[in-house]
């Protein structure tokens, strides 16, 4: 019972985190591409409750930032004009979940821009870009996971069920893919694909490349399961009664691979999200102006950004809760699939 509750808790945590990212338009105050050239590299807005006279307000407020003369990136707060933060305001239009036209935002300030995580070199709100970027990064990671698992399931089931030389050849190829250092292989494949592509093209490219690289491990695991399932008595009986291959596979064998596939999904998804982040970070993935978690971080490769604008590092912190969620889910799933291994290593293989 405890196992099941554990699993449910992790699923809930992950669902909430993904829902926030999926509804980025609502939670983000601004459009990810909206520039504010007057405020490049503005630090995170300070949220105030106490005004200049010392009286306390229930409604939080921010002060508008005025550029300090002679600097491009120094600001002082305009104490005379506090901008109260309002909740559930109408603002710029967006499409909720990519479908519903909507104008409602969770919060915005009256008469000033509120940048919870500061702004980048174009004055774009990092918080909004982080949420919108999550859509691309998470979606790419999940799509790549689905792709790798589908491909892995197909190959693994073929190899395990038919056996013989099909099995031999497929598993040799899988071994080849497993032998390569993961990231190097990713790079190598990326190297021979077009460098400059549209954001949408890049998205599918990255997803495809990651999925293509990752099929080998799930394929081996699925093969193992299918191989043992194939020899069970009830499968032999079904075959004896004249069941077709398709029926046996669908009815008796593939359902057994479910737990392996689910566990693999929980292990692979964060890795693939990270793979997208790394590719975009290095300029090989989703390009500007579309936001993604990787290219949000790309600017800190510049030394002056790293030394002067510490808040550009903050987007890094969202990766950790997602990793925590998936790690928890993976170990809960392992416990659920095989309670005797609950104390095992956890999703050990990182790359």
């Amino acid at each position, binding site marked *: 019972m405890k196992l099941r509750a554990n699993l449910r808790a992790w699923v809930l945590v992950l669902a909430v985190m993904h829902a926030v990212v999926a509804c980025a338009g609502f939670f983000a105050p601004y459009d990810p591409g909206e520039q504010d050239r007057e405020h490049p590299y503005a630090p995170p807005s300070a949220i105030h409750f106490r005004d200049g006279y010392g009286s306390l307000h229930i409604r939080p407020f921010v002060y508008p930032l005025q550029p300090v003369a002679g600097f491009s990136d120094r600001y002082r707060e305009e104490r005379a004009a506090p901008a109260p933060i309002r909740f559930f305001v109408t603002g710029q239009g967006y499409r909720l979940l990519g479908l519903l036209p909507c104008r409602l935002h969770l919060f915005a300030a009256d008469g000033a821009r509120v940048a919870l995580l500061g702004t980048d070199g174009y004055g774009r709100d990092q918080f909004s870009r982080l949420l919108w970027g999550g859509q691309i990064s998470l979606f790419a990671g999940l799509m790549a996971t689905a792709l790798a698992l589908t491909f892995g399931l197909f190959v693994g089931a073929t190899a395990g069920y038919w056996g013989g030389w099909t099995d031999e050849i497929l598993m040799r190829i899988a071994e080849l893919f497993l*032998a390569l*250092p993961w990231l*190097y292989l990713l790079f190598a494949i990326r190297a021979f*694909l077009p460098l400059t592509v549209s954001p949408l093209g890049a998205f599918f490219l990255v997803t495809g490349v990651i999925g293509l690289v990752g099929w080998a491990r799930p394929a081996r695991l699925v093969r193992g399961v299918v191989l043992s399932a194939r020899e069970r008595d009830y499968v032999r009986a079904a075959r004896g009664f004249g069941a077709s291959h398709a029926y046996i596979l669908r009815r008796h064998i593939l359902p057994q691979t479910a737990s392996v596939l689910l566990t693999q999904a929980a292990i692979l998804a964060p890795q693939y999200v990270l793979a997208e982040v790394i590719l975009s970070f290095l300029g*090989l993935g989703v390009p500007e102006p579309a936001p993604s978690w990787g290219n949000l971080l790309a600017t800190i490769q510049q030394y002056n950004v*790293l030394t002067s604008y510490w808040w550009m590092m903050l987007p890094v912190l969202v*990766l950790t809760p997602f*990793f925590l969620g998936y790690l928890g889910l993976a170990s809960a799933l392992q416990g659920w699939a095989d309670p005797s291994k609950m104390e095992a290593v956890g999703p050990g293989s990182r790359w």
Partner: protein
Amino acid sequence: MTRYLVRRTLHAVLLLAGVSLLTFLFTALVPGNYFDEMKMNPQISPETVAALRAKYGVDQPLAFRYVHWVGGLLHGDLGFSFAYNTPVGPLLRVRAANTLLLTSVAMLLAWGVALPLGIWSAERENGWPDHLITLATGALLIVPDLVLALGLLLVAVRSGWLPAGGMAAVGAEPTTWAALGRDYALHLLLPVTALVLSCAPMLVRHVRAAMLDVLDSSFLRAARGHGIPPRRLLYGYALRAAANPLLALFGFSIGTLLSGSLIIEVVMSWPGLGPFLLEAILGRDLYVVIGGVLLSTAFLVAGNLVADVLLYWADPRIRAERGNG
């Protein structure tokens, strides 16, 4: 022994051949190459581009190019870098040496940390050291390499305690050996720390699991019953029996370290294979990419080979099973 060794080596060579074939096949998918950009340049005549293409053999069919390249490889020639206009081999050698320096130091340290911690954790199962170590490794496991590297870099840059990148001080060349060594060590510290922190937690958990498996077994309970002192029991008996999965893990950890070092090298501008490969990819420097990928695979395969040999040496069961077969 020799038969086992020969078989494993043959396997490794076949694997490398497969990898090289795979990378070459990917090059066939290339829409465009290094010389396509040259064609756009009005200052370079089409004849020059055609001559260059002919010189580097880019205009030949893929199969021919592969055979030619393999032929060169057997003579120690990895092809020609378009961007550097020199053979790939010497270029890669320098970079690979730097990567090897980084990863081998990190490897030693990571195992040096992971073994005692894992053993200690298993010895005090469910005691406070165990809980503390499990918590710490769990915390480190959820922090991706990239985040770890960036965080360390930020600390180094803002505090100014450590050099924030590169491999040696620029400008003032150290004159004595001691100063030179100190300079290298200082520059190594940051990337090595990042690598160890990203790799060691996984190792600790595996060591703990392997030791727990063994500590639970009946022969150790019997040994304990015979009054063998705990320390000898742990290091003399249990560790020896737990060696099998750990040696397999050793081979695996090389791949983890190589991939991890790639991103850490780029972030911390360590002049290893990682940044070089990235630059080659962005510049479409075909043979450098192929050489780099192949070399990293060779490291990995060599590491696995060493692990296999160690396994053979450590586990009599394998000797009996595979040595004759």
